[in-house]
């Protein structure tokens, strides 16, 4: 039954044996114990399970673990570096971009991807970039502000370094 795959998850490379039908999200949660990635629907609608796969935000309930063979995956647990929060995480904390926190990991990962593609997004572009992630608590306004904060902070840091 087992199928061998090799994955680099949050910087750690390893080989795993998985059932071919195992969804990536279940693999991450149940086999690698990375439970920060959540499941809200299993049908690719809510975005709670969003992770970065080779730098692209994907819904990890929509692919099998075996399809990710050879990939580099970043989950919410791998976003902070050396105990320092990623700017998007910081933005969510500063601007109260979360309440129950369930959609938050997926929302943050989508925010990270949107800033990678567009370092200075307008509010409309932020909303467009997060349209695949559902949140039932916040009404999204503080999330937009959180991403705006992260963009500003990242750009300021880049200007300083530049």
């Amino acid at each position: 039954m087992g199928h061998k795959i090799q994955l680099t998850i949050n910087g750690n490379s390893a080989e795993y044996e998985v059932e071919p039908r195992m969804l990536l999200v279940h693999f991450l949660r149940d086999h690698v114990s990375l439970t920060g990635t959540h499941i809200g629907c299993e049908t690719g609608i809510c975005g709670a399970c969003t992770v970065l796969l080779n730098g692209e935000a994907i819904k990890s309930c929509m692919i099998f673990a075996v399809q990710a063979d050879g990939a580099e995956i970043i989950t919410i647990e791998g976003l902070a570096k050396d105990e320092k929060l990623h700017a998007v995480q910081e933005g969510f904390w500063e601007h109260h971009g979360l309440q129950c926190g369930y959609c938050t990991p997926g929302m943050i990962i989508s925010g990270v991807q949107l800033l990678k593609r567009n370092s200075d997004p307008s509010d409309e572009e932020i909303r467009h970039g997060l349209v695949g992630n559902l949140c039932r608590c916040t009404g999204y306004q503080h999330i937009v502000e959180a991403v705006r904060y992260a963009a500003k902070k990242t750009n300021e840091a880049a200007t300083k370094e530049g």
Partner: protein
Amino acid sequence: MAQKLVGQRVKRVEDPRLITGTSHYVDDIHLPGMLYAAFLRSPYAHARIKSIKADLALQHPGVVAVITGKETKDKCGTVPCAAAVPDLKRPTHYCLALDRAYFVGHPVAIVIANDRYTARDAVDLIDVDFEPLPAASDPEAALKSGAPLAHPEFRTNLAFKTEGADISEIFKKADKIVKQKLLNQRLVPCAMEPRGVIAHWLPGEQQLTLWSSTQIPHLMRTQVALMLGFPENRLRVITPEVGGGFGSKLNVYAEESLLGYVSMKLKKPVKWIETRRENFTGTIHGRGQVAEIEMAVKNDGTILGMKYHIVSDLGAYHQLLTPAMPILTGLVLTGSYKIPSVSLSVSGVFTNRMSTDAYRGAGRPEATYMIERMMDRIAQELKLDPVEVRKKNFPKPEEFPFATPMGVVYDSGNYTLALDKCLELIGYQKFRQEQAEARKQGRHIGIGLSCYVEICALGPSPAMPAGGWESATVRLEPTGKVTILTGASPHGQGQETSFAQIAADELGVKLEDIIVVHGDTSIVQYGIGTFGSRATAVGGTAVYEAINKLKAKGKKIAAHNLGVEENAVEWDGSGFAAKGQGKRLSIGEIALAAHLAKMLPQDMEPGLSATHFYEPKNFTFPFGAHAVTVDVDIETGAFKILRYVAVDDCGKVINPMMVDGQVHGGIAQGLGQALYEEAVYDENGQLLTGEFMDYALPRTTHMPWIECDRTETPTPVNPLGVKGVGEAGTIGSTPVFVNAVVDALAPFGIKHIDMPLKPEKIWRAIQAAKRA
């Protein structure tokens, strides 16, 4: 002295674990040897179960057991309903269906397997012979004679009926009677985290632990203990992180008892995590009311009386509070207005659908939607300004406390102030001028208002099914750190922060030296839970009062240790000081002295901890005014939201950032109902909107920018002056959208369009008006 934290925009202490993915929701907990449960549920709204054959499932590798209703009938009890309604018909609600299934999603059998995939595979291997029966689906149709019966043994679908008073004499005095039928459609709460339960039986300790995603750990413990016939003190309920509730987890569900039973039977930990489809079919829905309203008015807009008839779609069974929803609607029926005479009648109707119950606002959004639509209808009929009609009927600030004919007493309010602020922010007069101009150019812009009042801080125990108090223990540890145990069980509202803000101010300690613990019945004293915008107003007051008790003891210890009389010491913000002597003891030093117990007043108990059970004397009544402007495209029926202004008054504000968050989120749910959401069952009782694919939750691009402002009218009900804000946005926002669209379409003479405001519906209303 340090700056006070109450009233500050303090960042939440909950957040670091939530933004790094290191918190634990039920599904994140893994126990060694854990088994997984999956449910077989009825695909029919009403069916006879002729047989259940589980042989194939049992032979499937990895399957441990298949359990049916025959086995659990006498073991797992019945699902409780705590609502008291006179002459209520109560169908026995076993945890698993026996010979009949009564709604789509009704649990019929459980499979237990070694892993979750196997459990789900095996569900498909169970052969159930269902004989479909005619179903009661639409609640109004279900009341007609000859309609299929949801529960044939009752010979009617009417679960209860209350009659209204005869106010026909009042109606004779009216210049005009304004009538309208209004639909408050069924909604699905859709917490982002579905429900989930882990049960773990420890045979040695004779202890059963249930992890459940619930808003009410203690009430749930009591009820599940009764269901299982199991000693409550050996049952431990833990609610770890809870991913949203909105009322859907303010309940006791069959799965909680069933999982407990399964774990005790198999002597293994067992986990069940609800799928989204199960969440749509098997977790409570909200709203589901059809109302027929008549308002007796004078030509100047004065309201004389109101007749209100509700048909409430209860669903197949009474969950914890199902029949209480239309009753709650009744409590706040008159909204922000002086309406001297009210006749309310309610018909609660069984349908072969999932139960309705408390969903954010719970009965109050229905009332607010109705009254706020009617204020606009009255203005329309009398050709008055909707602002004028509202102001004419407001109670004045000096009339508070204000008793309504619905039997409640509004604590405090200044409704004109909130409305004026809202009108100023949205630029009401200017908008009316723009509207007149736009109409000349063939553009259809409109403005919608809502002046809501809600019943919060639920509530005085005599008015509640299970006690309306809340508890807190505040404990000073020997090192001066503060531990707060709260019976409220927050799940996103941020009380770990707001309660710590209260305690930091009252004790003069740093925020980071305080921990707020909740959601574990073995650690926390009995509590009620988080719902009905009560956690801060009731639970926060319990914290405040416990601190007062603790400080009273601390004062005695300080006086004794400083060698002065008790009346010679006073609180200096972070400790007790001997007046005029320059001697003091910090609260931390007092805590150490209390634990070392070497220098305590005679006969004093050691330790420094206090518990308070706070019983509120009244509800609180937050209020506010919301306004939205819209631009309707009459060719397509689609409309754009131009601006949204929310002026809320929730009494004293502990954390303005969190209050804004509650308002935004509440408005998103109100907008969801007004524009997009609708649980649609077909005539056979089949749920057509059973996934996120078919049920439209608002997304980022659907939400307007919300301009928030506040007035602050403290409540005299509790010493903190806080009223509650969890449901305000939902209650205030729903009617503004319908009011705005109908206002935009005033040139067509359109009187009303039911929610959700789909473009097609608006377009059809325009076409019908053009033809008329």
